[in-house]
């Protein structure tokens, strides 16, 4: 099972929305080709923004935890 890891993410941001453009995983900078889906998880006041993205290295999931102001990343998996 792959671990969720802290990630540095380059983000496009305007007043209406934001979207990741590039992120790092295992020290590798990975460019996002497409955002295939996104959804918001609400737990009380806290919000977690989820992005499923497609890159040259495969599919990844990115999460932005609003309260922590941190990004997490893990490859999409199936068994």
């Amino acid at each position, binding site marked *: *099972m792959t671990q969720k890891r802290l990630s540095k993410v380059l983000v496009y941001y305007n007043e209406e929305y934001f979207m990741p453009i590039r992120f790092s995983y295992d020290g590798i900078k990975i460019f996002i080709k497409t955002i*295939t*889906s996104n*959804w918001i*998880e609400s737990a009380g006041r806290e919000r977690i923004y989820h992005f499923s993205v497609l890159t040259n290295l495969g599919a990844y999931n990115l999460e932005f935890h609003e309260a922590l102001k941190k990004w997490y990343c893990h490859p999409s998996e*199936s*068994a």
Partner: protein
Amino acid sequence: MTGVEYVAHIDMDAFFASIEQAANPCLKGRPIAVTGIGKRHSIVTSASYEAKKFGVRSGMPFFQAVKLCPDLMAVKVQSRKYEYVSREIMKMLTGVSPRIMVASIDEAYVDLGFYTRLEEALRSFIKFKHDLKESFGITASVGVTVNPVLSKIASDYSKPNGFVVVKRGLERAFLKQIPPGDVPGIGKHTLIKLESMGYKTVGEVLEEFERNPIRLYTAFGNSFLGLIQSLTKKVFHGRSFSGRNRPNPSAIP
């Protein structure tokens, strides 16, 4: 001016599996099962159409599903994600008509009394199906008839991505093709009894009901007759469609 007296049933096709396939294009076209990974006796919550071809069904233990489809891929269930997508879809559906009734996380009924012409309503549904594909990458099947039970049968009739409209007066012609097992409310035991009495379609049961209702009454009782009768009548009155309801939490894994 009064609106059209039709009700639509919308049912998402392999909802959870389709969401996962849309999120990860590597899963597209492959047999997948949405399940709790890591649990020995995980249950298949949703199977993609590619997996369904092998006989994999929702509610089946995962180990049994793998026996049927050795290439089956397990994808971890993410209930919060499905709840979010469902809420967004139901919001989108209120664009078709403000009078909707959410039946579960992946199905809803829509009262089309909001429209004065059926064609307008159908155009809105074509747009809804297009928007659904564009926004979420998934498809839904739609059934439009004069009553909710028939609409549900119609939406199941040409899954996936179906669109079946049964105009008033054509209910019987449509039901002539429907096996009794496809009617919600007809269970396993009733089905066995119907088959043993020689009824192969709902149309045949309806004909028998008109010729000899006593025979059906003695065999199946009053509630069955009520169900059969309701299929061709406009039993829908729209009172339960007062607003957008929340999905039933028990329908969410």
